């Protein structure tokens, strides 16, 4: 009886590994042009503690959701000297003509001849169309507007254009991703391409995808933008952190959005 039991266990075990392999195959690869092109793309959520992951998955429990609602309210509220709201130009709800626009940022804007972030675009509209003051990059209102717009693009893959006039920024982002920085001389890729899934202190290294940003940090009890997250990484490698919207960070955001373009947006996220 014992050998038969053993064999059946082995068959079960073998079946388990086969199904695990099948599951792997369902995951998209990183783009062929990356150094880690054999890497399977894994969403950031999978590296989170279970409780945080559950919090993000439940819109009623997700602490970033009040920001989405605040952003939605702000969308239709007139502001600035022109007496207009976002809705006056773009519409609202199903008729919002830019409801999926967030997925295409960072984006090249011909008028300024550079690649800009969603935050910069929002302030562009505020200053030109609304004739309102720009929102500080780390303000609650900016967090609300970006959380709302990114939420509208939820389940869509990032649709960034890295061709034409955006090429130079994109290539710079790729270079920065692999550039060793700081006193510790570590590149983004060394941790996020090579060591994802392993524990750095109490946290598990992810693959560094931007899909769930902006996120609510449970520890800091506030919203954190992608560029603020970059700053934290820079501090960990003991490099000099750059200001939000610095050209290097815009380039890095463009590269990361392209690299994870087969993973849908899950914003707004929750992080420890």
């Amino acid at each position, binding site marked *: 009886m014992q050998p038969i039991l053993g064999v059946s266990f082995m068959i079960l075990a073998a079946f388990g590994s086969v199904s695990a392999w099948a599951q*792997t195959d369902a995951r998209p690869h990183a783009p062929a042009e990356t150094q880690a092109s054999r890497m399977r793309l894994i969403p950031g959520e999978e590296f989170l503690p279970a409780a945080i992951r559950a919090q993000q998955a439940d819109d009623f429990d997700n602490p970033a959701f009040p920001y989405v609602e605040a952003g939605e309210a702000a969308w239709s509220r007139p502001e600035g000297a022109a007496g207009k709201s976002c809705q006056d130009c773009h519409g609202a709800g199903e008729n919002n003509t830019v409801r999926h626009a967030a997925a295409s940022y960072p984006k090249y804007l011909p008028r300024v001849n550079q690649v800009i972030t969603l935050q910069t675009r929002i302030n562009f509209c505020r200053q030109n169309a609304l004739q309102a003051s720009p929102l500080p990059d780390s303000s609650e209102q900016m967090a609300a507007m970006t959380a709302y717009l990114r939420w509208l693009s939820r389940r869509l893959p990032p649709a960034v254009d890295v061709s034409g006039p955006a090429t130079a920024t994109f290539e710079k982002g790729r270079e920065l991703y692999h550039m060793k920085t700081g*006193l510790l001389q570590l590149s983004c890729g060394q941790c996020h391409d*090579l060591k*994802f*899934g392993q524990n750095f*202190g109490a946290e598990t290294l992810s693959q560094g995808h931007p899909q769930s940003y902006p996120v609510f940090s449970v520890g800091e009890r506030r919203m954190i933008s992608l560029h603020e997250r970059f700053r934290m990484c820079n501090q960990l490698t003991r490099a000099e952190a750059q200001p939000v919207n610095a050209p290097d960070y815009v380039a890095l955001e463009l590269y990361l959005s392209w690299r994870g373009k087969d993973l849908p947006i899950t914003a707004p996220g929750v992080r420890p």
Partner: protein
Amino acid sequence: MAKLRMYIFIAVASCTAGSLVLSALSGARAAECQRKTAGFYLEETNAGVPHNLSSVLQNLPGPLTGAPGNSERGREVLVSRQKGDCLSCHKVSALSSIAGQGGIGPALDGVGSKYNDAQLRQVLVEPKTYFPETIMPSYYRDGGAAVSVLTAAEIEDLVAYLKTLR
């Protein structure tokens, strides 16, 4: 590639063996195993750490400071987030009361008996001498705080502490 396959095989074997013996894996551990066996990532196990670092390779026989280090201070250098911050990547069982120990590098248990002072010093100053593939940074460079994570004295203190891990 052969090496890669071998690692995957080891991961599969250890996970399935574990599940056979215990048959009641916790959900988290099962998920962890599944991730490993699925090849999402290959974890380098502590077993891979060589017991004898090649003596042919360069090592740093003398103290960087001309004086031996202090193991008490070395412990502080190892733990401090602003100094060595070694626990972000390495586990030390002797310090298990400190939470949040990482797992990117091997556990440091027993390094004091495996390696001599010169080898430990060399690993801290330039780990790639012994481990060409490592992402572990160099912790000491000539040129002061602008380029060096630790001071020469801190390296010696750290060596003294690591020697106590037997």
